[in-house]
Every structure is written in C-alpha cells, then in structure tokens.
C-alpha cells in the first residue's frame, strides 16, 4: 500500500507543529523520518494515525483520500503503529493485548482466546521469534513487549507500519533484530515509516530519508550521505559533538560506592552489586541502554531507595541510609532523569522552584517564614547566571521549554556547596543550544574538583563528556573503561558483553 501525506499542517494555537509536510512511502520501502527531539515527527504520525486532526492537508492510501476520525479508522485502512510508549495493557496477557479491539468471539461476544493465541504464535513464528501468548505483558522485557506491539499491528493486516522511535529502549543486539524484522516486513511488501534521530540506524535500513526540522521538511537525503551532512540538516547548523575540556586533574574528594544493591518492591534486583569510585575532578559517565538500572542507581545515591544495600562513601562518610534531606545537606547535587516529574513543580514559579530544596532553614526561611525578598533576589541572580530565557521569575516553570527548565534545575542544584554532582540524562529533550551550555557547566563543576556522575544513554554524549565510562547491563556493571574506548567495544558492553581487558580501575 502506498502512503502519501500532502501538505499536512497541524497547529496548536500559534505553534505550528507540522507545517505543510509532504511525504510519500512506497510499498516495500523503509522510509526514515529523521529529526531532532521536538521536530514534529510524532505529531505527524499522530495525525496519520487519527489521534490528531490535521488543520490542513490530506492523507492518501493508494491514491485515495482518507478521513480518519480516530485510530480505529486508520487501523481499518491498514495503518499499524508501533508506539514509542507501548500501547499495551500491562496486566493483560499477550493474546488479550493482541486481540483487543478486534476480538475473535464465538456466540454473543464470548472471547475466543485460543484463536488469539494462534494468531500470536503464527505471527511470531513467521519472524522467527518466540512469544508466549499467555504471558502477562508487564512481566515481559521491553524488547519482547515491542514485538507484541508488532504482532498487534500485523494481526490487523497492517500494510503501512509506523515505528516511532523504536530503538530507544533496545540493546544494540535487540536493535539489530528489530532491523531484521523491518527488512523482512519490507520484503513482504509493507510500507514502513521509521522515525528516529539516530543516524547510525538510518544508515543501516533506510531506503529513503526525509529530514524534518521545526515542523517542516527540510530536505531529503540518501542513506549514503555522510553523518555530519545528515546531522547538520537535522539540526540546522554545523554540530559540534565534542565537548571542550582539559585533562582531568584529580583531587582528594572521592565517592566510593561498593556492593550497592537495589530491589523493586516485588523483589526484582535492579541494581546488582555495583561498585565504583569517582574521584574529584573527573566525570564518570554511566552508559547503557535505558532501563538497565542507571535510574535506580542514581536514585539510590540520593537516598530515594531507603532499602538499598551496600555502601556509598562520600569523602569517607556513609550516605546510604540517610534521608534525601541529609544526602542533599552532605553536598550532593542531583539532576533527576525526568525533570518534569522529579525535578520541578510545574505549577510553581521559577523562584519557588529555585528554593525547592532550601526550605529547611536560613537563608530562605527564618522562624518558619519564607523570606520572599531574598528568594526573588536569588532567583533573579540565578536566572541571569544560567541564562534561563523567561519573561520573569514568577512564571510557572512548567511553561518554560525543556532546555530552560533544565537550566532551572541545574541552577538550583549548583547553587549549593557541592561535594558531588549526579546528573541523570541532563540533556534529554533539550535543544542543541542548551545542551552545549549544560555540558559546559558540568565540565566546570568537574574542573572545580568535584566528582561528577553523568548518566547518559546516548553514546555520543557519553564519549564526549566522560573521563571514564561505566557501562551497565541488567543492573550490573559490565565494565569501567576509558572514554577513548572504541565504540564497537562500548556497543558490545551495552549488550552485556564484558570487554576483553578490564578497563583501568583508577
């Protein structure tokens, strides 16, 4: 089936998320939609899938104009989507998820589960993988969940398949397997739209590439085009992927983590016997595919997992078992992974957010009373220093862009006397300009002799920022290696394969 989008425009108020986008995907073709975070790729696909109504433009399938009222219509027309956030009901079995919405029934609406199981088995067999139809989805690894999403789309006989950032949660190995599945689908004559911002993946499977920026198509490219050409097309200017920094000058400050273990409430060990040290003046990047224990590790460092076991020594004193308040007071700065849920109170003003963790006493609180004048003065100073672009310090922080929100978090965390900085995914969802600023501040912190831990799932960022890289896989440390370790070794490590020589321990 041939998919054509003509002049799709989607506005949200004054913001134009999609500006007259044209796109053609032929059957038997993998068409990559390449663009930065926030370029409008997902909006476009939600229009295609009937989740949003386009303000202008039309969708054509095999030359016929379509009018989708909702996802149901899109699906019936033969469009299938593998969502970035899986659209699976966690407590349902695989078979139930696959049949949901087009259930096979016998009698008056009585479910025929065996038919659904058969669908799951036969589709899985076709692609040479195994999925237990009766497994409950929430118990499955993300890679398998994604396959359930694919089976779901195929079981409805989708002819156009959209993969929305499908590799973010996959290991390199799983990514390769997904690529193989995509190629097989292509050989079966499906039209495939592959949304991503990762150049390497594009190069591997794409037949054609369309680059979107700021909601517009800015060009088409050939899969053989060089990286920096694609990147500058995507970002709109030459991209500097390196970070300026001097060689590390170690100080005596030190964070020593040993045998740290964190378990989820239902007993799954997500951080498993993790030991490492970070010296003052160096950046340790914790790399790995998302969901391999990095989040829980940083949370444990800050005291968010009171049940964690092991030891966390900061300059010789034990942090484990302390409350978050006490850990912060010990001089730990923490930039959480998900700033909008963990880092900021969206409805609070910038000024309020800047003192969010400072309400336990002087200078901002005296005799139980907030010192509003002092707070505002501080806020103005920090907004200036961290280049937060805002109309004023009273603006609710939720109205700032991602990059500016992140600067507010950084400003707050760096305005205390630090002895350790932990930054989890500090540049995720942040515009390029802010990324450079954030990297620069992190390097400055390191140069001030403070141990820095950065969690990143982007290999490029890890390599650019790190003095050493620690790779985690399934809650364990695969290895700690120097920043100049070859990418293919790092890639293998992210799939759980330890490097042949253990990296420098220092």
């Amino acid at each position, binding site marked *: 089936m041939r998919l054509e989008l003509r002049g799709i425009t989607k506005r949200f108020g004054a913001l134009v998320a999609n500006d007259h986008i044209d796109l053609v995907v032929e059957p038997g073709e993998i068409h990559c939609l390449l663009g930065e975070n926030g370029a409008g790729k997902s909006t476009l696909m939600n229009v295609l*899938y009937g*989740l*949003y109504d386009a303000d202008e433009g039309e969708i054509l399938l095999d030359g016929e104009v379509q009018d989708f009222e*909702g*996802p*149901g*219509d899109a*699906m*019936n027309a033969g469009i299938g*989507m593998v969502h970035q956030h*899986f*659209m*699976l*009901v*966690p*407590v*349902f079995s695989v078979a*139930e*998820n696959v*049949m*949901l*919405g*087009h*259930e096979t*029934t016998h009698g008056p*609406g*009585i*479910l025929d589960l065996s038919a659904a199981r058969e669908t799951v088995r036969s589709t899985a067999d076709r692609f040479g993988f195994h999925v237990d139809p009766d497994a409950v989805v929430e118990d499955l690894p993300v890679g398998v969940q994604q396959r359930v999403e694919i089976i*779901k789309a195929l079981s409805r006989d989708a002819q156009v398949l959209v993969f929305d950032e499908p590799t973010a949660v996959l290991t*390199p*190995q799983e*990514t*390769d*397997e997904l690529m193989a599945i995509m190629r097989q689908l292509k050989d079966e004559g499906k039209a495939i739209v592959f949304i991503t911002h990762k150049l*390497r*993946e594009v190069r591997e499977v794409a037949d054609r590439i369309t680059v979107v920026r700021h909601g517009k198509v800015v060009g088409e490219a050939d899969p053989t085009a060089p990286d920096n050409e694609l990147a500058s097309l995507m970002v709109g200017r030459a991209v500097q992927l390196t970070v300026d920094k001097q060689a590390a000058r170690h100080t005596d400050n030190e964070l020593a983590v040993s045998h740290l*273990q964190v*378990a989820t*409430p*239902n*007993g*799954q*060990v*997500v951080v*498993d016997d993790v030991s490492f040290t970070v010296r003052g003046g160096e950046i340790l990047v914790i790399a790995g595919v998302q969901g391999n224990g990095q989040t829980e590790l940083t949370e444990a460092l800050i005291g968010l997992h009171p049940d964690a076991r092991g030891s966390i020594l900061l300059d010789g004193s034990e942090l484990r078992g302390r409350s978050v308040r006490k850990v912060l007071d010990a001089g730990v700065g923490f930039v959480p992974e998900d700033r909008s849920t963990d880092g900021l109170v969206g409805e609070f003003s910038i000024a309020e957010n800047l003192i969010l963790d400072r309400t336990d006493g002087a200078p901002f609180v005296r005799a139980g009373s907030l010192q509003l004048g002092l707070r505002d003065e501080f806020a103005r100073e920090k907004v200036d220093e961290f280049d937060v672009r805002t109309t004023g310090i009273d603006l609710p922080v939720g109205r700032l862009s991602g990059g500016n929100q992140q600067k507010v978090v950084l400003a707050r965390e760096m305005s205390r006397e630090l002895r350790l900085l932990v930054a989890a995914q500090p540049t995720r969802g942040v515009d390029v300009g802010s990324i450079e600023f954030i990297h620069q501040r992190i390097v400055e912190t390191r140069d001030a002799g403070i141990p820095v831990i950065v969690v990143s799932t982007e*290999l490029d960022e890890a390599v650019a920022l790190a003095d050493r890289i620690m790779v985690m*896989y*399934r*809650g*364990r440390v695969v290895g700690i290696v120097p920043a100049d370790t070859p*990418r*293919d070794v790092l*890639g*293998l490590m992210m*799939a*759980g*394969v*330890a*490097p*042949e020589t253990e990296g420098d321990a220092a």
Partner: protein
Amino acid sequence: MTAPAVDGTPAATPDAPRTVSTVSWKTPIALGVVLALYALLLLLAPREGDARFSLSTPTDFFQLPVYVIPGMATAWLCAAIGAVLVVPSVLATRRARRTPLWVTGVFAAVLLFGFLAWAAAGSARDLSVVGLLGGAVALSVPLVYGSLSGVIGERSGTINIAIESQLLAGAFTAAVAGSLTNSPWVGLVAAMLASALVSLVLAVFTITYRVNQIIVGVVLNVLVIGLTSFFYSLVLVPNTETLNSTTRFERIPIPFLERIPVIGPVLFDQTIVVYLMPVIVFGVWYGLFRTRWGLRLRAVGEHPRAADTVGIEVLRTRYRALLIAGLVGGMGGAFYTVVSINQFGREMTAGAGFIALAAMIFGKWNPVRAALAGLLFGFATNLQNVLSVVGSPVPSQFMLMLPYVVTLFAVAGLVGRSRPPAALATPYTKE
C-alpha cells in the same frame, strides 16, 4: 551500533533478572495481634456457663439437637487452635512464601466460633445459627449488589463513591413505583433505572466534564439524600397510603431444598432478589473476564490510551459501564423497600453504600471476592443483632464498627496488597 556479540566474554549475567525475597511479616504479625487481642478479651472478661447453639428450624427434614458446649473452655480451645495456626504462617514467611489462604481462613473461622461460644456463654437463650446466617444473607444483599456496581464502574476507570446514593435513590423509587402499581417488579425496575440515573450524572460529570470522581461521588451522596428527604417529607409522608406502602416480593421456598437443616432456610427460602444475587455475581464475573465487553471495559480502566489506539471508544465504554453498574446497584437499593420492609424512610441506607465500597476494596475489585466480602460484612452486621438477642457482653456499637475497622486494616495492606485498576480516577482526553 555494532553487530551483536559473536565472540567476547558474555558478562556473568543470568538471563532472568535476579530477585530477592520481599515477603513481609505482615500476615503472621496480624494473626498474632488478633490472637493476642482475642486472648486478652477472654482473660479480662471471662464468662460463666454454657453456650447453646441451635441449628434446626421446625420445618427441617430432621431435627438437630441444640448443642450445649462449655463457653470458656471452647473459647480457650479455639485460642489454642489459633495459636497453632500461626505456626504455618511463620514457617511460610521464613521460607519467603506467602501464608496459605487456608491458614488465614481457618484461623478466622476458629476464632469466630470461639468468640461466639464466649459471647453466648451463660445465656438462657439458644444462639440460632440459622438466624445468624439467614439474617446475614439478607443484610448482605444491598452490600453485594452495591459492591458489584462499584466493581463494574471502577474496572472501567471511574471511582464510585456514589454507591450510597445509588442505593438510596433505588430504595426511594422502588417504594414509590411499587406503591403506585402494587407490583414489586415495577419497583425493582424503577429502582434500577433511578440508580442508573445517578450513575449517568456521575458519568456526565466525571467522563464528559472530567470532574474529580471522588468529589462528584461525595456531592451526589449529599444531593440524593437532600432530594429523597425533601420529597419524602413533603410528598411521601402526607400520602403514605398511595405513595409509600408498596407490595413486597414474596419468599419463594424451593421445594425439598428448603427443608435441609441449616442451609435450607438460609439459602432456599428467599426472595427472587436474593436468588438473583449469585446469578448476577457470576454474570458480572463472566462478563468482565470472558467476554469482549469485559475485555474492553478492563482495557479502558487500565490503559485508556492503548484502548483508544486500537479503536475502542473510551468514553462510550465508560458510560456504558457506569450505566450497567447503576442498574446493578439499583437492585440493591430495591432490596430496602420491596424486599426488606415495605416503605421508604429518610436516609434508610445508613451508610451501606460505604460498606459496599469497602467490600469492593476488600474483594480486590473482583466480583466474586467482592460479593464474598459483602456477605462477610453482612454477617458482621447481623452478628450484632443475634448477639444482642442472647445478651452478649459486647456493645453493639463495636460490632457495627467491625466492617469499617476490617476495611481500614485491608487498605492499610495488612490483609494482602490490592491493586486498583491503573487508570482509576483518570479522566480520558484524546488530545
């Protein structure tokens, strides 16, 4: 990214993620505390004399004797058995297993029996087991229907604090409709419709206008109390003969079965509304877990966006679920006026809707468990009635308090973790 591992040393990571034991000591501790309280009761308030349990009614096939047992001795024996039962719970927890359900069940039953023996000791009257159980079934009717209403609504993602108002609206309407037509059937249907109307208001405000579900529920309760009381004193009281004296459902004894001792009079000499109860419980269970309707309803309650992306109309599904919940809840409301007594009284449901809510939570959003919890709470309420007949030393208020205290323990996680539908209380918006 590079090709997958072909050579190199695989990390020493087992394929299945490691787990550690998380079984808590809550259950054995809870059992121990209950046992200690029970023993304390026996120590502080010893009772003299024998307890008399009667099991038969005159119409039974054969008459069972009145069992006379020594009160205190039996009570202490039960305490001993209870103590023995704590052991397997402790052992199971030690081995990182859950306490088997039978242990908790037998523990509860034994202590209950001991409690009855203690309470009835020295009383001249017989403690009628038939009366105890039969009354429990009757009192649990609105609780069971109410909790089913809650289960259906909440499984689709809408918290239903308004069960109380569904029951009250049902009771009121059944009384009026039943009085006007002299037909309890019309009363029953009217009650179901009235309760569905309450549900509809809940749906409009929570689903369409996305108002906080708990607040709408609370306000609806006040609204229905206001409306029914207003019309009761202004319209029903002056016209009691025509508007508030309905015909009730007759008991339908089931031939043969009704004459089996104990269970005959308890289970097989009831009204149609009671007989329908197990049918509806099973129907709701089957509907929720075995049909397309139920699959979609639960999907909408767990992950509405996922349901939307496969073409399920989330809002319509939720509306439909709430309307059906209303119909079911109305049957419980009808119980008050066309089964129990034949007229409506101001605020006559007296918080049963909240006990039904408690039963639903206690039953972990499962229709069968919720119905069993409803029966249990009905039993607790009736226990108070029966004990006051034999002259129990326990103040009635404490017995009446029991369902609420039990629910407090349940929601505090002392009786096993429960997990509500994930999208509960979340309004759904497409864009």
